[in-house]
């Protein structure tokens, strides 16, 4: 107790102790001290009673009971708000996803082309050689009749032996006019 306090009501420390005593928040030693004071001081007992009555008066305040729909509306509100907050990042990610897909396609196509050419170099296709030689093979019997390598070279230079992509009936192959081989004329 504060000896300078005019009355108990002016003793802030003691009132704090009484208030804490009501709440069961005093250490054992302090608790014993307050109880000894309460035994001998009528004023302390009156003060404690007033503090207790003020505290108990709060029981008159109602405790809220909400409608069950409040729970549902709360959960829904939270879900909507969180979804809204997460919304904008998805919209920004869509163009990124599209660009990534395009880039992936380009990379894949390039890889396929490189791989194809690499395989082509490393492991030549025997069938391709046959295809390239097909015009010769096709006319092999006729070409054997020409017993002149120079003539054959000239014919090749003129494009006679180039593969004709279109069917034979679609477009006639243009063949250069053959220059007759000059013949040496003999006089009787």
């Amino acid at each position, binding site marked *: 107790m504060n000896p300078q306090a005019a009355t108990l009501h002016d003793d802030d420390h003691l009132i704090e102790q009484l*208030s804490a005593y009501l709440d069961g*928040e005093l250490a054992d030693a302090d608790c014993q001290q307050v109880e000894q004071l309460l035994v001998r001081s009528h004023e302390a007992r009156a003060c404690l009673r007033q*503090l207790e*009555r*003020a*505290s108990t*008066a709060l029981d*008159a305040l109602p405790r809220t009971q909400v409608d069950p729909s409040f*729970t549902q509306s*709360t959960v829904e509100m939270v879900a909507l708000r969180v979804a809204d907050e997460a919304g904008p990042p998805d919209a920004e990610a869509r163009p990124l996803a599209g660009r990534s897909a395009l880039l992936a396609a380009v990379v894949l196509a390039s890889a396929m082309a490189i791989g194809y050419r690499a395989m082509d170099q490393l492991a030549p296709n025997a069938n391709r050689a046959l295809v390239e030689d097909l015009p010769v093979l096709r006319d092999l019997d006729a070409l054997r009749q020409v017993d002149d390598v120079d003539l054959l070279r000239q014919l090749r230079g003129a494009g006679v032996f180039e593969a004709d992509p279109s069917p034979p009936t679609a477009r006639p192959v243009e063949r250069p006019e053959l220059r007759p081989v000059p013949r040496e004329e003999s006089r009787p």
Partner: protein
Amino acid sequence: MTLSESSAPDYELRDPDVRLMLRVRDDDASAFEELVLRYQNRLITVLEHLVGRREQAEDLTQEVFLRIFRARKSYVPGSKFSTWMFTIANNAASNALRNRSRRREVHLDPGGTGSMAMPGLDQLAKAASGQMPTRQLDKAEMRDIVRLALDSLNERQRLALLLNKFENMSYVDIAETMQLSPEAVKSLLSRARVNLRDVLEPYLERGELPQSHSSSS
């Protein structure tokens, strides 16, 4: 390792609501709904007496749950779940009251003039003319007197009293919620009870209704 992290397993062990919150952290929707069910009434009760309006208390309650859900991924149990939740509630209420005072909305203020006299008492005066049963009148009157007394406290005193009364919080838990020391909470509660006593005692002792007074607490 911080203190809260070192005690996290303890809270998880002792507090079932902490375990629920950890499930919410793992995106368990049913756990979140369970937390809402368990705490909505308690939150609205405290917030309604703190801000003085039921509708605002409901809005603030939903705001609290939204903040809890947003914070779920970084949740580490460093206290009882209720302590953490009421810390958020205190912050939400403080912001709301601050915004309200900025807008200068008229609200129940027993420290004001006669024009701000409590509507409840006027209604009670009319009801006292004979239409309301005496017992109900006493209860309703008592409730309004206590509300008046509670409104005469400042926000911190009011919150400390409400957490102590409605949530049975210890001084340590109230201190954590309000970011004060336990000694400060002890002093705060003591002053709150003295102020409450000063308003209520004339009514409780002699049935005298509180008079409007100009000075604020």
